[in-house]
């Protein structure tokens, strides 16, 4: 991993078209500003990894399990049904 030190308002350029700027530093929290083309997704890492894991799991779903899916009544609301 490349490690660079930056102060508030300083930036890093990645490739030709991604710029990361330190917007604010408060205690142990850093606010980062990211300038990137719209087609490049930018997200918190833990969110990204959770979705990657879930996609991987979802890709293994057996049709027999998926077909167990019960379609709610028209309103789609959660109601307690007897029995």
């Amino acid at each position, binding site marked *: 991993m490349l490690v660079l030190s930056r102060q508030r308002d300083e930036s890093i350029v990645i490739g030709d078209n991604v710029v990361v700027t330190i917007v604010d530093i408060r205690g142990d929290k850093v606010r980062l500003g990211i300038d990137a083309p719209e087609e490049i997704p930018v997200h918190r890492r833990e969110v990204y990894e959770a979705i990657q894991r879930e996609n991987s799991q979802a890709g293994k779903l*057996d049709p027999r*399990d998926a077909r167990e899916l*019960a379609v709610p009544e028209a309103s789609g609301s959660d109601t307690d049904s007897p029995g």
Partner: protein
Amino acid sequence: MEILTSRFGPIEMEADDVIHFPTGLLGLADCRDWVLLADARNDALAWLQNVQRPDVALAVVSPRRFITGYQMRVARRELVSLELSDVSRAEVLAILGKTTRAITLNLKAPVVINLDRRLGRQVIANGDLPVRYELGGERSSFRRSA
């Protein structure tokens, strides 16, 4: 053209049936071309079948059908690559998963499709949403896969 899918056997399709995901899916970046198949047995269910990898298919549903008042909230930049002239015409699909208790929906990362342009993208929705929202209630049995 034909895909020899691992779940559904051989599937015939036209080039027009293919939906192109320019960035693939998260963690499946190489999986860029998909077709949407209706499930043969459950009419609420569809499958995104990958063209390049016949073993990759994702069960999907329309989340509005399962969650009252469902609204996808996503940053505008996420939708730019879909070339939607009208965001309300986008098809929003949630990917199914499962826990030991229930079938789940990935509400955090829905799939958005522009059917007219045959373009798709998995987006990350705003808010504290689950990747595994358990669908509850009426199902009395849950059969494990072999």
